[in-house]
């Protein structure tokens, strides 16, 4: 143990050459700065997308503030603590997910919420953090690459909550949970033959999935993606209007508040899932590229933190959080621009929605804990 520890310490100090002298709050300022910049951009777009109403902006700001506080609190936690108590969060989340099936409250045909005395809580959001945390905790302690039995246990840990969320039905969140968990497996060095095996299983399961598991509206979304014109005023409306808004933006956009698609209500869900179309229309290709650069910078920072992490748990968790963050971006930008079917995935830190922001910031809080712990150990 001591041998390894020293080795790691040397490794850390020689490669990264950082040292920490103060005992103040553990804050990764680069990460914080990037997040604040992203949130500021998001609020700016939201103000226009919500029809210049301060009510949305105000509520978003409150959630952002709460999320930042939560992030900084989590950031102070020792990673070992997170690693040790991961199963409690995961297990608790699983219990809540099961209880949603029985006592959950619904909206728009989906049963996703638990009513906790006036406060609505969505356990599936919790699982977005709990699943990678649990897997990182489980795999971080195994010999890597993981053996078959370990892979099987890990897969079960992913699939059970993903299916529970998927049947709510909330395909977008299920997908993200699955992705978050899979990333941990992949980063933990999952052997190629397992990956191929999974691919073959996935391909054979796909038709069964289509015919037995997907609901009609979900099939319709996929069909609509292939041919939006087939149902112009129904399912295709969203895609047609959003691609129109994006395309009409051109290189530099029509200007803040000047997007006709956005301001004249042609664009559906313009302040939530489809907010990128507002940015695209009003700030053009340039605006989209700048936002993507900001995202990329955050991802690079995340990858950087994961590489510097002192434990496998830290690496796996940081890597998974970062990659999942990218999945959010990719799925959202892809679906709004008509590349992917419409699944309800918001644009991280930009779309209106408190839960998503708090969840994301909790994830970044763990990232921050990992990032700053490395520094402390490097002392």
């Amino acid at each position, binding site marked *: 143990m001591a041998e390894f520890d020293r080795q790691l310490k040397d490794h850390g100090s020689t490669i990264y050459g950082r040292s920490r002298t103060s005992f103040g709050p553990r804050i990764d300022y680069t990460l914080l700065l990037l997040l604040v910049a992203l949130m500021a951009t998001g609020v700016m777009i939201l103000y226009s997308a919500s029809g210049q109403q301060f009510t949305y902006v105000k509520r978003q700001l409150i959630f952002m503030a709460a999320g930042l506080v939560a992030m900084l609190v989590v950031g102070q936690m020792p990673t070992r603590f997170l690693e040790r108590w991961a199963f409690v969060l995961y297990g608790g989340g699983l219990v809540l997910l099961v209880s949603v099936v029985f006592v959950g409250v619904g909206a728009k045909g989906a049963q996703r919420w638990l009513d906790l005395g006036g406060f609505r809580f969505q356990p599936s959001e919790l699982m977005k953090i709990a699943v990678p945390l649990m897997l990182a905790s489980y795999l971080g302690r195994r010999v890597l690459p993981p053996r078959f039995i370990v892979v099987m246990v890990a897969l079960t840990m992913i699939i059970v909550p993903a299916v529970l969320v998927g049947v709510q039905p909330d395909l977008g969140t299920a997908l993200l949970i699955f992705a978050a968990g899979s990333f941990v497996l992949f980063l933990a060095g999952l052997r190629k033959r397992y990956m191929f095996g999974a691919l073959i299983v996935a391909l054979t399961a796909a038709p069964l999935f289509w015919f037995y598991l997907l609901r009609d509206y979900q099939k319709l979304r996929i069909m609509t993606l292939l041919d939006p014109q087939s149902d112009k005023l129904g399912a295709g409306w969203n895609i047609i209007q959003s691609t129109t808004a994006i395309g009409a933006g051109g290189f530099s956009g029509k200007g803040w508040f000047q997007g006709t698609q956005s301001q004249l*209500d042609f664009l559906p869900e313009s302040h939530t899932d489809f907010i990128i179309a507002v940015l695209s229309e009003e700030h053009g290709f340039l605006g989209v590229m700048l936002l993507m650069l900001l995202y990329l910078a955050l991802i690079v920072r995340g990858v950087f933190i994961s590489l510097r992490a002192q434990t496998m748990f830290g690496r796996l968790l940081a890597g998974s959080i970062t990659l999942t963050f990218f999945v959010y971006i990719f799925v959202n930008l892809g679906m709004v*621009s008509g590349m992917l079917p419409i699944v309800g995935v918001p644009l991280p830190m930009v779309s209106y929605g408190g839960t998503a922001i708090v969840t994301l910031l909790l994830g970044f809080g763990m990232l921050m804990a990992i990032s700053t712990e490395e520094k402390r150990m490097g002392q």
Partner: protein
Amino acid sequence: MREDRVLKNTHWEARLYAVRISVAVLVLLIMMGALVWRYYDLQISRHDEFTTLAENNRIHVRAVAPARGLIFDRNGVLLADNRPGFTLSVVIERSAGIDQLLATIDQLIDLDDDEVERFKKFAQQRRPYESVPLRYKLSEQEQSILAVNQHRLDGIEVSARLVRDYPLGSLLSHVVGYTGRINQQELTQFDPTQYRGVHTTGKTGLEKYYEKTLLGEVGYERVETNARGRVMRVLERIDPVPGKTLRLFLDSRLQEIAVRALGAERGAVVAIETGTGGVLALASTPSFDPNLFVTGISHADYGALRDSPDRPLFDRALRGQYPPGSTVKPFFGLAALDSKVITSGYDIYDPGFYQLDNDKRKYRDWKRGGHGTRIDIYKAIEQSCDTFFYDIGYKTGIDDLHRYGTMFGFGLASGVDLPGEARGIMPSRDWKQGDRGVVWYPGDTVNVSIGQGFMLATPMQLAAATSHLANRGVVRTPRLVMSDVEEEIVSNTELTDASGSDTEILTINPVHWDTISDAMVAVVHNIRGTASRAVTGLDYKMAGKTGTAQVVGIKQNERYDASKLAKLQLDHALFIAFAPADNPRIAVAVIVENGEHGSSTAAPVAREVIDAFLAFYPLVDPGPETDIDSLSDSPPERATHRESEAEHRG
């Protein structure tokens, strides 16, 4: 767990992780590249295409209906107006579901089945993005109810539209006509660019005849709308050009007097200003309220009008074809004189009937026992002697009767500027052969000689023929519209000079006009004249002729007994007149259906109209250029008249 931990090679695992995350980042960058490519494709490569789509989304070109031209009478009395009315329309494409929307509207403002049915029928003719009217003439209360519930009513539009209004109601329904919604058939006939945004069109009367003049030109508006179709702002506007205003020769006061004089009778009055051919009054009773039709008449109202035995929808003045009876005598008398069959001195003995050679059939005179000896053309017209006209008509022959009858417009459309005019029948050999497939018999000529038999004429034709007679052969096509004016109308009681009317001179020996005119004056003014008892106390000279048209055929040796016949079988009463006789300015034809005798029922109607006309338009203060002589009955004036006509003949 312990074993695992012991066996873990942390350094090797860190490298494994580094490899894996690198692969992931590589994939991530490729995916990001795909996103960049996608946004580049949409925003840069296909920018123009989507700009067009976005513009089409937000910008709509709306047609702005022009205001329909107004119609005034000759004195500037408004006959057809446009009034703002609030219309509820629905754009089906924008509603969440049309049946549901209609149900919601029904809860708020009761819709009747007629409206819904009409709406659905109408909706089939329009494209889903076009607004379809559901209810016209929303009350203020209904407007506010709809406004309050706007959020529940996606797809509705409340718009102010001009609705045609006829202030004088039933007085001029057969003349002015009415507008109504464009129907399926009209939709296919009209040029859609001219009617974009226009929902109504002239259906009858002047509204139909002058549709193109009244319509105006459609304007356009480029508007920005939101996704719900609400107009956010107007970007560009090309104003519509309002339809032209029509000014009529008609005097609504005379019209009213004519209608009132007809009272409860079924009948028609046509009054023509002889100097212009302008129609002064054109009445057909009973009538109906044209305002009922403008926004769509209800089934019940329409059924009542259609099924009424008095047929109020039927325009008797223009479409009623009646045997003209004795009112043709002046014209056929003229025919006999001009074709030199008789002279003004020719006379007969009237035993009360007429017989053709080798024919036992007796053509009876209306007066049992006859009019006695020395009945000449003068007395024959004065007393309406049938026997005389049987005789001269037969002598003139159907060919000449037809020729002269046609000259005066019998059997031809008068050419008045109204749609759907009936042509009547001026029988001839060819007509009978073609229409009935039978040769002409001499007896047919005898019947036609007194305006019976096959002959039919409309009140309009009779009035026009009377006007030509009054004008001594100057034929002026009757016209309703004096001009289309764009400027403010100046109230003007002066008579207009002969304007755009077609003028033609009949080639008739001028001497005969006096003979006929004098005889017609005798009808009214001589003690033995058929209208003398009905028309008394005139302060001007009126030339007239009574007529009675048989409704039921009377068999040989049978007497006409009015008391035995039901009202609907009574003879039609006719009267034609012009006045003043020595300087005619107005010609009138009146028919009272089942009015029995022209003298007793029709003549007083004509007299009231003429009285009023002469009172309204007195010949005062003749200027230096006015022909003073025309006021008097002096021979030199006559001479000049003849000369001028002779010139025309030459």
